[in-house]
């Protein structure tokens, strides 16, 4: 943390800061898009939990939700938007500032 930043409150995005949503955002950050099942497996969240966090991220404009049919079965695909990508990168920078200068 720079000297000028000392005393300034750290502005972490609360939508991303929630652990489950952070997991979803991290998974979506490294891929182009993924479906519900893939994210359920990767995050260990239940369908209901994932669905509720997905709605919050979608409302914030961080992810885009695409619904389609695959073999006549509903298939939900999630994709991080440009806004989400930039918000996630800002979040990483802010978090880095928090831990900067701490002894190992």
């Amino acid at each position, binding site marked *: 943390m720079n000297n000028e930043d000392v005393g300034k409150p750290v502005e972490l995005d609360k939508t991303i800061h929630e652990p489950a949503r952070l997991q979803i955002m991290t998974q979506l950050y*490294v*891929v*182009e898009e993924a*479906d519900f*099942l893939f994210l*359920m497996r990767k995050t260990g969240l239940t369908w209901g939990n994932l669905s509720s966090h997905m709605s919050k991220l979608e409302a914030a404009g961080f992810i885009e939700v695409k619904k389609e049919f*695959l*073999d006549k079965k*509903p298939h939900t695909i999630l994709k991080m938007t440009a806004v989400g990508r930039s918000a996630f990168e800002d979040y990483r920078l802010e978090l880095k500032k928090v831990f900067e200068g701490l002894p190992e």
Partner: protein
Amino acid sequence: MNEEESLKTIEQESFRETREDGFNETNFGIMLLLLFNAIYEKPGYPSIFDVWFNLIVCIFGMLCVIFLFQFYKVFRNKYVYPRIGYVKLREYEPPKVTFGVIAVVILMIATAITLIYIISIGVVATDLVYRWGPAFFGLIMLVASFYLKDKTGQNRYYLFGALMTITGVAVAFAEFISTDMVSVIYFDGWGIALFVLGIVKFVLFIRKYPIIGTPEVANSEQ
């Protein structure tokens, strides 16, 4: 591990999972078995396949390549996505076309044309090309193994590249193998090995990941 490395690890895990179904190995095995037998047909030498068979194989191989993506899509929709879910990996932007990139491409084309010309006028004996072709191919695979190691984070890909190179050199030095058979043995051997490996991986994949029913599917079926 810093967070940059952690993100890389998560990306590598996703890439690994997309390859767990064994389709890539099976497909590469079939390609080696089909295409190289056709390409390596050499008049005057005994071949394990006749010309007609090679022609059919060549056409079939081309059709395989053309319809591969469509087949792979259907295959994954049916067997892969219901088990591990769907993920599309990030596509990185190709390098910008600069003078350096153009120079490298021109150099590569010029080298290929020169090599083909040298071989065709007999400066380099055709037998030498047939004998050392597998070793050269092995070297290409060694370069590919570096890419796969980077994408998956698995060191086993180095072993794959090294084995393809070593076996290529070994068959080239094996005096007891006639020149026309060197490529056949190498490509058929690797083709069969990769095909079997792909099938084994697919069976293990099916056993490891049962089909997961999500409520969204259950709701739609009510």
